[in-house]
């Protein structure tokens, strides 16, 4: 560990200097912060499409959303719902970072899930109905479309990559963005991800029987599955020296990460938690910290029977007895599972928790079960947090763990 720490000290430090978010519980960082503190749930009946025939009708949909507040009609013809969310969050994050475009080489790295599926579905539905749909509905279907529009809008010239590993996409995008800064490929990276609800993902999760008929209740004994969510989260990453040099506000540092594959099953996690434990251990090693230095785990916590059980087992494997003293919560209890945006949304939640000295609760959690018997933070709680570990686990066994720390710890 000492060697890892020494290596760590030599590596360029990457910090977060701006954040922007839009999700069911907040259209700005400030609103999102307030909702996290209150444990406000954004999971309601879906109105975006008809889901009356499905076992669940709930999702954390962004309500009362009027795209014309943000975009003109001409622009909107080229943007699907997810692209709009990404651009809205990016605008807030870039303004928050007060970059002033001071000559740095800025790149984009985003994670997306279904991307422009909602637009493609309109096209497909019309096609199946014998109509002649507008071909431009298909343009946003390529998953990298949002990253391209973002780079175009803000004239970002640097490297650009879109990560498409379902539920871990935007966590990986943050990790990779940091590496591009360390490797000298970019000075600043605009990272994060976006997701919009779509019929396909909604029906898809229903077909797998992992959708809770009620708003999801991660880690609770009565949990029956997940609730989907939507939104976008964008974070501005830059080298610490650069950020300090320009006197930027620093939300925290990405201390380390791990991305690995379970090589087990296309949908199910390895059930003993050994693989997830390995990923968390590798991230701790990368960050050069001991498990007991972690103050809070921002869990993947989807609310499915299996995920919450396996994640708990993995935490117990790494922290052993200490696991019972460790606060663990799932913001998916409030904003739903935002798939491609989830890792980004949870990174923003982790950094806000650190900055504002609190732990977001697992809303709706009342009673654990035999395996899920840790501290899932049912009520809002004040706490000093110096190090947060955030998990994102995806279909295909794509696991990503990020570790954030206070920059002045």
């Amino acid at each position, binding site marked *: 560990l000492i060697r890892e720490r020494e290596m760590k000290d030599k590596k360029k430090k990457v910090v977060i200097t701006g954040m922007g978010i839009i999700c069911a519980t907040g259209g700005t960082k400030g609103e999102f912060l307030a909702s996290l503190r209150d444990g406000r749930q954004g999971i309601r009946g879906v109105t975006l499409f008809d889901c009356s025939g499905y076992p669940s009708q709930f999702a954390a949909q962004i309500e009362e959303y009027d795209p014309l507040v943000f975009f003109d009609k001409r622009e909107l013809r080229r943007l699907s719902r997810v692209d709009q969310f990404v651009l809205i969050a990016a605008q807030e994050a870039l303004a928050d970072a007060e970059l002033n475009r001071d000559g740095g080489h800025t790149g984009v790295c985003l994670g997306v899930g279904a991307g422009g599926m909602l637009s493609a579905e309109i096209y497909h539905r019309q096609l199946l109905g014998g109509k002649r749909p507008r*071909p431009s509905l298909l343009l946003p279907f390529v998953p*990298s479309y949002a990253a391209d529009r973002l780079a175009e809008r803000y004239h970002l010239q640097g490297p650009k990559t*879109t*990560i498409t590993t379902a539920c871990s996409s935007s966590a990986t995008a943050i990790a*990779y963005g940091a590496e591009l800064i360390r490797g000298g490929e970019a000075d600043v990276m605009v990272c994060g991800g976006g997701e919009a609800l779509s019929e396909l993902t909604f029906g898809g999760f229903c*077909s797998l029987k992992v959708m809770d008929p009620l708003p999801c209740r991660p880690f609770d004994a009565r949990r029956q599955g997940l609730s989907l969510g939507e939104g976008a989260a964008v974070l501005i990453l830059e080298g610490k020296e650069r950020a300090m040099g320009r006197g930027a506000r620093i939300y925290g540092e990405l201390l380390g990460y791990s991305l690995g594959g379970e090589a087990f099953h296309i949908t199910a996690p390895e059930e003993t938690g050994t693989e997830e434990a390995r990923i968390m251990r590798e991230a701790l090693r990368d960050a050069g910290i001991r498990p007991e230095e972690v103050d809070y785990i921002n869990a993947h916590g989807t609310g499915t029977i299996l995920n919450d059980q396996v994640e708990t087992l993995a935490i117990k494997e790494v922290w052993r007895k200490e696991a019972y003293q460790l606060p663990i919560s799932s913001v998916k209890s409030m904003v739903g599972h935002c798939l491609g945006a989830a890792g980004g949304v949870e990174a923003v939640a982790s950094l806000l928790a650190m900055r504002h000295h609190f732990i977001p609760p697992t809303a709706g959690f009342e009673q654990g079960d035999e395996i899920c018997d840790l501290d899932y933070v049912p009520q809002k709680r004040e706490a000093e947090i110096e190090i947060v570990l955030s998990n994102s686990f995806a*279909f295909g066994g*794509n696991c990503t763990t990020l570790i954030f720390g206070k920059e002045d710890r």
Partner: protein
Amino acid sequence: MDAVVVTGIGVISPVGIGKEEFWKGLIEGRDGIKEIAAFDTTPFRSKKGALVKGFNPKAFIPLLKIRRLDRASQFAIAASRMALEDACITIRKDVTPERAGIILGCGFGGVANAEAFHRGQVLRGPGDLNPILFPNTVPNAAASHTSIDLGIKGPNSTVVQSFCTAEAAVLFGCQQLRAHKADVIVTGGVDELSPILYRGWDALRLTAWDAGDGERSAPYDLKRNGFVPGEGAGIMILEREADALRRNVRIYGKIRSFSTAGGAAYPGDKVARIISGALKRGGMETIDFIDSAANSSPLLDAVEAEGLKRVLPDRCCDIPLSALKSMLGEGIASGGVRMAADLLILERGVIPPTINYEYPDPCCGLRIVTEGLHASVKTILHMGISLDGTYMVILVGRGDGVS
């Protein structure tokens, strides 16, 4: 900084399956583009595609598994197996599973499943949905199935970046090696041409069609009018140079430098900028061959020519250039197959031709190779252009220290 080298390649392409058949097809100038018979093209303006022919998944994957895998996943598994074998690597024996990673560029894998699933939703309603389809709608299915099949447990990711999808994956793979997150990385690109994707390209009026001179992939030809959609997989095994030297294995080539650009600048400027960036970072004086990104689209080819002329005004008419998409068609991750070709060109000293170059476009003014050309190639400029905003070049050099 650690140098990254390529020690294995695996190819499934419209001109041939396997390294040798692929190479033979390339230097013969074999046209991989055919009238599509696999699905009905009557509603479309375009009729041709660069489909992979004669692919037998049973040669690579157990029979029971095949049914559960989409075509992109089958391609990815088969090409990865070939590449690992080529690199003399057996996971677990030569590298621990946790130190082997896979970073794949995937072009529209899973879309056929997404279409089938959504069709069921629309036509039959929510009561009768097929749970097998949904998990395979995600673009990371191909990389995940491959990691499961081969037991790869290290860094695992999938990227899509428009027509530079494979190049973006290779950059990510190099970065993971340089950061010592893994010792072996399986990377490259895989594309699956499904009927719904073909329909989409056709509806967007991006594909080649018969306007009197036949439906062809004709890069740099005056009468080009769109690209021909293709599919396949081009997989490479990346290692740090020191590790490869220690293993004493064949080194196809070295990734010398990358350069990327995006934003809203004028396309020709971006092409010029990335080329000069890659040359500067790679410390290169000469380029022996340009692996063109030209795909027979009127604008893209012109943009590439303009960028080349701007940055190499005196030299670009002397450096041999070939547009392999004339034979292979275009897939958004087809950069992987082209990179595999680059490495074979370095090894074998023959430049494959550009076919269908009949009516030279006077505004291009490049040295387009139309017959297989013997030449000592030490450095290749691999172009990646996506007109919707991503520009990426990779400079690939011989691994023997000659260059």
